[in-house]
């Protein structure tokens, strides 16, 4: 049947529609498939093959939800009728056989067919296709973004892991081992939970138990674990198929181990022990040496900060009091506790006020104390010893120093003592005195104190009453001078103006700077005491008076000279008589010793170093060298057992070299560095000087030169 023009038109429209639709669906499904496969592969880490299936799958789903190809020409004619009013609802006439049409229908058909050619095809599917392409673009962008997620994660993780643990070392695992897991169970006292790792290198707290769970991909007859190349343990399989193996061990010391699978040895893996440190004690108050002066409260505050890596169990103060003097010193020991409970804190700050009086200390006694702390593993540590002493006032008041001779400036000292005695007397009589009388006497004492201060001030060159310790208030005089009438032509006056001319009063005396400083301190104390006395507070003045006295006493001690005792004169020796006894019975002692052949270790290591150096230039090891290398390996195993972190790498490299597969300069250098570390400091040895071969000619020359008499 020949198709009419109208039928063709509808057909074309359908074909175009379906093609565009399919394109759109393909674009959309591609977008979805891209995003999905990106998620599968990069986020969920599934097989990349999955992405190959996603596209057909998504496409099929989309196609079957709306099977467009089922849309017939009739559907399109209906659509066209709706869309284009100029067809006058007669589009389906186009599809009918023209022969079967009635007259009217034929007329209508002819009318429409003319119009059809003018109608442009619908824009809708094209617009939708653009939408589809937009979705594809979005899908592309999204999938690209998803592929970047792992990198971002990695970056985050690496930042995080850098902060938490050491970088994971690359390990070579025997091929037979399909899976393994290490469980580190730290000791209970550490309070740490057990942790699992997929790494053979172990870093564990001291005393931790480590479990190895190893799974092999084939049945294995024997699996050994060798510690420090010495201790070899044969493991027993956990299942009849001999593919699961476990082993556990308590780690007490650093070292290394390796697995032996069917006689094949694996790489070396290191065991590093994190030691448990004792409690760290820091005393912030008081100072190491504290002196409590009279008048000060006889107590002090003790501030301590304790810290430990796992927990503190206990801490106390161990105090020793020394009382008495000279040979009559007696000691009493006491254990003082901090009144707090220790709950295994990692750090704690403690404070306690220690009342010396309640400890039974009197003036002149000394207190020595230290702090002892225990961590939860039972390790104890103690702090330095601290001293607290109470000044004995009676000794200050004693005349012992005065009576025996050297007495440079006695009157001043007596005066200070007198002031103290008077002050104490005044305080005692306070209740019996009237207020006015008390004030007058206190003021009088203040005047005495002032006079004394001024007299001492003279030692420092102070003549001005107002100054203490020699502060130059008189600098102002230059400024005041400005107002005065200027004297013209007076050279000295002009010079005075520009030169800072007055003497430095202090330097006029003959004291050493140290002594001067102490004198100044005395004056300050006196000044303080005078202030209190003048304001009728003799009680408050008393500590300053005592301190002034103590400082003066020290000064007095300092100015003393020490003269040693003269020797005793003995009878003169007769040299001719000395060593003249009979000696024939005395035998001459002879000792003979030979140093035992020293350990060959040093010699071996040194030769090995040169051997490796020659290997670097390409020389192969010969039989004799093998022995030397095995010796070196033995020494290095010993070193590696103590310090796996330092020597384990070198040991692995050394084994590679001994196996002699291929030469790698880097391996040699690692081993050389390790050997040099093992040799450590070598102290100097005397060098025998060497002269060139002395032929007869040289000898003759020398002899003749000697003969001519140099």
């Amino acid at each position, binding site marked *: 049947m020949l198709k009419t023009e109208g039928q063709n038109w509808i057909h074309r429209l359908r074909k175009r529609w379906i093609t565009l639709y399919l394109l759109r669906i393909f674009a959309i499904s591609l977008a979805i498939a891209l995003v999905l496969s990106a998620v599968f592969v990069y986020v969920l880490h599934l097989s990349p093959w999955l992405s190959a299936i996603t596209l057909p799958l998504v496409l099929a789903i989309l196609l079957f939800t709306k099977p467009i190809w089922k849309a017939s020409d009739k559907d399109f004619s209906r659509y066209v009728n709706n869309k284009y009013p100029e067809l006058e609802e007669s589009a389906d006439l186009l599809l009918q056989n023209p022969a079967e049409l009635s007259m009217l229908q034929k007329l209508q058909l002819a009318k429409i067919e003319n119009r059809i050619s003018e109608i442009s095809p619908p824009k809708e599917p094209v617009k939708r296709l653009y939408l589809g392409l937009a979705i594809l673009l979005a899908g592309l962008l999204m999938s690209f973004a998803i592929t970047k997620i792992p990198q971002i994660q990695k970056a985050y993780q690496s930042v995080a892991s850098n902060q938490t643990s050491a970088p994971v070392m690359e390990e070579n695992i025997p091929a037979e081992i399909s899976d393994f897991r290490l469980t580190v169970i730290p000791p209970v006292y550490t309070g740490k939970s057990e942790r699992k790792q997929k790494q053979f290198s172990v870093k564990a707290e001291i005393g931790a138990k480590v479990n190895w769970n190893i799974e092999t991909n084939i049945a294995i007859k024997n699996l050994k674990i060798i510690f420090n190349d010495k201790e070899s343990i044969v493991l027993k399989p956990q299942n009849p198929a001999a593919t699961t193996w476990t082993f556990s061990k308590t780690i007490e010391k650093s070292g290394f181990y390796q697995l032996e699978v069917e006689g094949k040895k694996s790489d070396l893996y290191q065991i590093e022990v994190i030691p448990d440190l004792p409690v760290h004690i820091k005393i912030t108050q008081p100072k190491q040496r504290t002196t409590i002066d009279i008048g000060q409260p006889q107590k002090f505050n003790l501030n301590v900060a304790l810290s430990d890596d796992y927990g503190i169990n206990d801490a106390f103060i161990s105090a020793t009091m020394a009382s008495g003097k000279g040979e009559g010193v007696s000691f009493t020991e006491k254990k003082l506790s901090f009144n707090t409970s220790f709950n295994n804190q990692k750090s704690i700050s403690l404070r306690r006020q220690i009342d010396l009086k309640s400890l039974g200390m009197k003036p002149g006694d000394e207190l020595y104390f230290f702090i002892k702390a225990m961590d939860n593993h039972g390790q104890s540590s103690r702090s330095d010893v601290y001293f607290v002493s109470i000044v004995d006032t009676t000794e200050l008041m004693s005349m012992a120093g005065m009576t025996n001779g050297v007495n440079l400036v006695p009157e001043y000292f007596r005066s200070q003592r007198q002031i103290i005695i008077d002050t104490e007397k005044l305080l005692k009589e306070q209740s019996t005195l009237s207020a006015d009388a008390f004030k007058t006497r206190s003021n009088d004492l203040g005047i005495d104190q002032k006079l004394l201060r001024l007299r001492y001030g003279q030692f420092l060159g102070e003549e001005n009453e107002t100054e203490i310790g020699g502060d130059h208030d008189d600098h102002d005089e230059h400024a005041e001078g400005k107002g005065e009438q200027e004297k013209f032509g007076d050279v000295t006056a002009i010079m005075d103006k520009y030169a800072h001319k007055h003497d430095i009063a202090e330097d006029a005396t003959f004291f050493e700077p140290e002594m001067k400083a102490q004198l100044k301190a005395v004056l300050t104390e006196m000044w303080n005491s005078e202030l209190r006395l003048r304001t009728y507070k003799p009680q408050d003045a008393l500590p300053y008076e005592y301190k002034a006295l103590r400082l003066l006493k020290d000064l007095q001690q300092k100015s003393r000279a020490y003269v040693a005792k003269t020797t005793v004169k003995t009878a003169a020796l007769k040299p001719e008589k000395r*060593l*003249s006894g009979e*000696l024939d019975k*005395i035998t*001459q*002692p*002879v*000792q*003979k*010793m*030979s*140093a035992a052949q*020293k350990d060959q270790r040093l*010699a071996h290591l*040194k*030769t090995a*170093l*040169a*051997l490796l*150096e*020659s290997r*670097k*230039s*390409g020389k192969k090891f010969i039989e004799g060298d093998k022995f030397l290398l095995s010796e070196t390996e033995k020494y290095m195993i010993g070193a590696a057992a103590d310090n796996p972190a330092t020597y384990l790498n070198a040991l692995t490299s050394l084994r590679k070299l001994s196996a002699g597969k291929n030469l790698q300069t880097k391996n*040699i*250098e*690692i*081993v*050389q*560095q390790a*050997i*040099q570390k093992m*040799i450590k*400091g*070598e*102290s*100097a*040895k*005397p*060098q*025998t*000087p*060497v*002269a*060139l*071969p*002395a*032929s*007869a*000619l040289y000898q003759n020359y*020398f002899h003749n030169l*000697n003969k001519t008499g140099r």
Partner: protein
Amino acid sequence: MEFKYIAITLCLFLLAFLLYKEFSRASKARLIWRVLANVIAVACFVLLIIPITYNTHLKQSANEIILLTAGTNPDSVAKLKGTKYSFASAEIKGIKANSIPDLSYFLATHKDIRKINVYGYGLANEELKNLEGYGISFHPSEKPNGIISANWLPEIKTTEQLKVQGVYQNSNRKNVKLLFKGLGNSIDSIAVEAKSTKSFSFKNQPKQTGSAIYQLIALQGNDTLAKEPVPFLVAEQPQMKVLILASFPDFEYKFLKKWLYDNQYPLAFRSQISKNKYSSDFLNIDSLNLNRINTASLKKFDVLIIDEEALKAIGPDERQSIENAVNTGMGLFIRISNPKPATALSGKFSRFESPASKYKPLSLLLKDENYKFPRLPLEQTLFLKTARNDQPVIIDGSGKILVNSTIIGSGKILISSISSTFNWLLSGKTDDYAKYWSEILSKTARKKLEIQSVKTFPQFPSINEQTRFVVDLAEAGKVPLLKIDSIKLGPRQNIELPFEWDAVFWPTTHGWNNLSVNQSARSFYVYRNTDWQALRNQQKINLTHLFADKSKNQQRKTATTDLFYQEDVSLWWFFIGFLFASAFLWFESRILDAK
């Protein structure tokens, strides 16, 4: 027909056509100019195709040549007139030069040559020998970049320091880092600033026994400029025999004895108990009678340590035999504690007392190395004065001498006023104690005479270059047997010194080679030809300079003759002419004519 004739004919046709066009043109304005321009344009065009040459001449001495050697800067010799020659091994890119396979052959065949202008790094010693009698003028190229001098001992003893010293010349615009590396460790480094020359000195105590190759690496950023090998040997130390005569046993002796014993030095120790009664210890040595000291017993020892009291207590004949022993090479170390000398031997050094500064521990300084020892808690009052032939060994902080040395005959005497050094051992400074006594004993001990010595020339023997060994023997007149691996060398006796022999060898393999002299083998290192390049170039420059200076003193007459040669006229001239002529034609027809 040749190409140039075709070109000329074609151009003539072109000119004819152009001229016809000019004359047939309507406008006759500036006709002559246009014709002229046409002629010039065509003529220049032809000359562009066919370059013209002209003959010129230069006054040059006929018997003078230019010799280009390695390192010649092409720019500097490009303008030089005259024939250039270069070695086949040192061809310079972009410079036409006649290749000389062998200089001596070339000179023999060109008898007329009297003067040679040498450019580049110059010539090696062997080649310079061929130029004996010629006038040389040397134009060195710029300074070589790298290590231009380096020195170290090829063989050291255990615990001795390896010292590598030299000069680095940096002619680059960037800083260079010079790194000293050995046994897998980077030992030391210095930075050499741009455009500067800096001397370096690296020190290390190598830990191996046997051979090792350290490296000097020059780095510029991440680039390695050079990697020079520093081969050396570490040999075991021969142990010196020590005799100690003490007037009474004190702690100083006790600790010294223990230290020597622990280090396995053979030691005999005698201390006086009473009159003519001695206690003696023989450590790591066979016992011998030490009651009387004589020349025979002293011959067995390298060092004698004695205190002044003991030296005074022994008989005069014993003292004489000690002096004789020192004369023949033995070392003597005298400890003194009194300001007045008691014997003639110890009186060779004058001493003085100076009040000790209070509470100030004694600080000692090793004079040679400027090494500072830790302080000793001593109040030292006795010091030594120097005389003309003395060499101070240990001084204190203020420069006063505590240990002094002098030579007597072929031996040495050291005198020390330090009463005790064992405090170092007590305070755990074992290394310093060892350093002190090592230094003292090394300075004192009898010199060990070698049986033979071998010197190698040049400093850096390399593959296929002549290497000369100079062997010194203890006994004269006996032909030494020199062997390298299995190759026997033929030694040649020195005419003046009968005990000196030399032999020549051309190494073929780089690395350690074995030379055996009378069955005693020793290693020597053969360098690659690329090693120490800068240094060798500098040496060449220095040698050639020296040679040129010498030859200046015997300046010869050199005849000058005219040298004819052809020179091209630069094409630019013709191009310019062509351009101007055609520009005029264009300008005339477009602008001047358009009006």
